[in-house]
């Protein structure tokens, strides 16, 4: 009995554990590079369905509840009657200016009403699937074009919740994909631009760099020794108890600087080979390359959208920049032209646009990542230069 139970447990537990394992694997996969893309995509698609459903449902409910709100008001008719009233009122005394003023007011109202009607647009027709897809995309990327906005209260509340969950998710996506892109870009850069593929060029380059570095190191060592000497003398005058510590400081700093010099001295071929083969992490991509990539991406987008949407290049690049920087004015919206045409095209355009945006934000993230790296590196170098000059002067 007991043995049976134990065996049963033994059989049962692995199954359970296997299930848990599967769950864990699934979550781990979902937060991996591939999974996060899928996650974001499905989140956007789910959001599209949710928003579409909510908006249409609410619209139908509201329409059935209060139909009078949705009968298009006859603005021109109203305006007409008001003007007629004014005219009839004023028929006894025909004051030209007063009449004009009052009619002008009426006309202004009329104008605004027309504008508002145009502005609001149709409530439900814009919530096609592609529209809702674009809407949820703009929510979680915080672009927020504003061409499609929720009209119902529930839509707004759900938008808030959706954004609260979606924005961190998208940030996760950005960081993951940006990281991957940055790494691969670095790799490509190292292979292509630094000519690490052909070993001769790389070798010569490395030898040149090392020579430069060695000179720098030598200079640094000189500074360091002088500085240490100066500091030891200063401290020995300031306090008598610190002589041995200062000497140890001196030895330590000299050791460090010597280690600094030691590295470039080992100039053997194997070392260079190793460096060539070595990890590409140590390469910093110059800022100009990053900027070129960004500009190129934006211009490519301008070209692409210029073809899809009949925009000119300025408009296309303006749209790309505004979208990718997540400003999202919404004065130019993808699918604006196509939405009025047949439905198939709309989907394609939306999908391409979504892919462009998702990829573009990751590329921008990558570029910023690399640029920051490089800028930090440069600042470091400047600082070193400052310090060397500083120390040289002071000592």
């Amino acid at each position, binding site marked *: 009995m007991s043995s049976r139970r134990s065996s049963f447990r033994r059989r049962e537990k692995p199954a359970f554990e296997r299930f848990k394992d599967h769950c864990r694997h699934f979550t781990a996969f979902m937060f991996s590079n591939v999974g996060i893309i899928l996650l974001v995509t499905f989140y956007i698609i789910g959001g599209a369905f949710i928003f579409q459903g909510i908006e249409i449902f609410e619209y139908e409910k509201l329409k059935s509840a209060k139909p009078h709100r949705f009968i298009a008001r006859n603005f021109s008719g109203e305006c007409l009657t008001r003007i007629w009233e004014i005219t*009839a009122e004023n028929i006894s005394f025909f004051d030209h200016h007063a009449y004009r003023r009052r009619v002008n007011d009426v006309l202004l109202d009329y104008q605004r009403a027309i504008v508002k009607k145009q502005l609001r647009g149709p409530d439900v027709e814009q919530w096609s699937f592609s529209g809702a897809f674009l809407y949820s995309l703009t929510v979680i990327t915080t672009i927020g074009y504003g061409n499609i906005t929720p009209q119902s209260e529930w839509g707004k509340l759900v938008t808030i919740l959706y954004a609260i969950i979606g924005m961190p998710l998208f940030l996760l996506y*950005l960081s*993951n994909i940006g990281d991957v892109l940055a790494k691969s870009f670095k790799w490509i850069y190292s292979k292509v631009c630094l000519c690490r593929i052909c070993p001769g060029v790389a070798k010569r380059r490395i030898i040149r760099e090392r020579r430069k570095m060695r000179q720098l190191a030598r200079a640094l060592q000189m500074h360091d020794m002088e500085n240490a000497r100066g500091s030891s003398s200063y401290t020995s005058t300031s306090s008598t*108890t*610190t002589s041995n510590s200062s000497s140890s*400081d001196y030895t330590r700093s000299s050791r460090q600087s010597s280690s600094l010099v030691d590295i470039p001295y080992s100039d053997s071929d194997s070392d260079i080979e190793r460096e060539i083969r070595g990890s590409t992490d140590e390469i910093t991509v110059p800022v100009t390359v990053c900027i070129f990539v960004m500009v190129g991406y934006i211009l490519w987008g301008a070209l692409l959208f210029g073809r899809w949407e009949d925009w000119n290049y300025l408009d296309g690049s303006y749209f790309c920049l505004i979208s990718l920087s997540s400003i999202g004015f*919404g004065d130019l919206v993808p699918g604006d032209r196509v939405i009025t045409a047949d439905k198939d095209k709309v989907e394609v355009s939306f999908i391409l646009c979504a892919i462009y945006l998702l990829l573009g934000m990751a590329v921008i993230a990558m570029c910023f990542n690399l640029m920051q790296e490089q800028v*930090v590196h440069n600042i470091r170098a400047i600082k070193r230069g400052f310090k060397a000059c500083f120390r040289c002067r002071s000592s």
Partner: protein
Amino acid sequence: MSDVEQAIRAKQQQQQLNCGIDDETDPDPDAAESGAGTTEVGARTTASLAAKPSSGLRRCCGHTLKLLISTPGLVLLVIGYSVLGALIFPLLEAPQDLSKSAAIAKSREDCLRELWIITEKLNVLYERNWTMLVHEQLRRFEGSIVAATRQGSAGGAGGGGSVGGGGLFQGGSASALGHFGYDADDSQSWTFSEALLYSVTVITTIGHGSLTPRTAAGKLATIFYALVGVPLMLMCLSSLGALLADGLQCTYVRLCCQLQRHQEHRRKSTPGASTPTASTKMTPTPLTKSRDKKKEKEKGSKRRMANCKGCKYDAANSETSLNDCLEYGQKGKLPPDKREGGECRAIVRMLIVFPAHVQSHANSNANANASPNPMGNHTLSQQPLVKYHTIHMQPASGKHRVLASGLQDAAVGNLVTGSEASTLEAITLPPPPAYQTANVHAVRRAKFVTKPLPHEINALMDCGTGSPDLSGRHDLLPPPHSGAAAAVAAATGTAAGPMLSYTAAATSPQLSSGIKVAAGTGATMVAGRGAATAATTALHDNSFMAAGVCGMAGGGPAAPLPPPPPVTTAAGTATATSAAATLSALLSANSTGTVDIMEDEDEQERERLSNCPHGTPSRVPLIASPLAVPQDSTLHRHPLQPLGRKTLLLTRRCHRNASGTLYDSTTANNTETSDDEEYMQHGSEQFDSAEGRQVPISLVLLILACYICVGTVVFALWENWSLVDGAYFCFVTLSTIGYGDFVPARSFNGPELQLYACCAYLLLGLVLVAMSFSILETQLMWKCKRIAVRLKLARTNA
């Protein structure tokens, strides 16, 4: 970043006025700089200035840059930039708008005239007849409006498509129509306030779209404006957010301290809580009284900088401006002392609450001695401390010896007053600057080499291998909670983090931050910690010393803490460690701060600039240009590591960090300067969390929710929106989504004051969001990681 710098360089002439004002008004960097003139460093700078005019020029450039990069400079820059945008955009956009609105007005005039003609022409006013004619006119008028607006909006788009589906014409025409509809009667549509709102929405990446550029020049200008302005705004937001976060943290801590002190007083009135430590703490000696008075006196000056960072600046100011030791002691060292006092009280209370943790001290101490640092004594005497420091801190041992002497004085006297005096003396001695500068130079230079910090990592490796418990446990954990920390911090934190995150949740960040400092400034840090422990031990007697030792044990080797014994002792040790480590963090912050400032103020400042978007993640604003990515990448790189290998993980991680990329070392360097703030924040946070009074997430969320609610109510009242609409508007705006379906500017017919109010609401709200993110980030990250750990733990168990 480069954009920003370019912008800064380009706008230096424009901002020169502001900077000139800033020069006089802004006390922090300038005072430090002027103070540097009196010190040796200042002499050096003058010498270098005299000797090398080019470097002097560079220094001047650096100073202006630094000034611009400092927080007030950034704020001024952002304000100036948005005002500039508000001035530029109307110039670019006004002519066309003028013509457009003039066209609409003209068509209205035509309509009006036609109406008048109709009315006049009809002698007998039959309604039907009249209506028919007028209707015709109105239709024409409507057509002209629609055509004009559409043309305006699609002007750039080249004839802009859809003529038929007027209803479906959205987006571009919507904003244009909205604009024209409401402002058609104005001769100039882009007023200054509207343009200001526009530029603010551009650089904050909100982008309401209620106003959009329609001319090609406007679009180009917007592109470049955004390119420069968005990173600028991000930097400003992140630095402001960090400042506010620090302020909030400190205020919270202080409030809690006050509360606790109040409780203490109440407890003191009740007879019974008379443990020796409590009595030592509570006997109000005259010196402490005088110090309290001093505190009161300086409260005004300290109020100015209610944040932690300010204290460092204060120390720097006074330290550099005055060679006078006494002044230095009072001003530079008292702020931490004061805080120390507050926290010490807390520690005393912790000691009262958890008296059982002394045993665990003994344990930890023993373990600490087992770890590579050869401490002779296992008891809680002062000797091991001093030894420890002298071993690790040869460069700064001069200061240490003084401290040690003070310490021994304290040990002999065992009086709070005497010990306080001695420590004050010890600290007030100006630390030999040459030492520390040389030391830091060495350390930094060591980091520039491709092999960063071998000895420290070795030490940590030793720590890890010294206690197999730790290394075994360590890999089960996700990467150490180093938050935004760099890789070196990760390497060091791995040693410290896991253990403590088992015993007490919140201590690990603290410790990792503490160790981050160790990694960052090497020996200086040890000096600081030694100073901290010495100060604590001197200030309060042996029991405190125990706490100090415990902190040392926890902070330094990080191995020794025994894995979860009884809960209370664990908690006790945790609190004690965190408290002591907080103290050490405070003091070492001071020391590192002084060292850095003595060394080179501007470079540190610039370093902070480079840090700005990096160190403080204002999440939402960072979406636009994802400068937060490095952090995220470091954060997410770790959890995605292969999880199965346990024993090799620590070594591998250390190895990776040791042979780490240049970027890693640079980021290590990078975090180094911001460490003082960072780990101060961490320290206070962790100190709080150890007692359960961290700035809670709920409080931060409450602040945000309150802000949104205020905005909701205000805008709902102004705009006659429903409350849901108002909340929706506020949320959409503050999360920088910015649909533009609700825009205050469009419905505002009243004074332009409301537009300015909207701008102010936006900016303040974004700063608040940045602040809350910088507060929440560490906690949230840590919690997420803990969840992940649990998952992985379960898996490894299974």
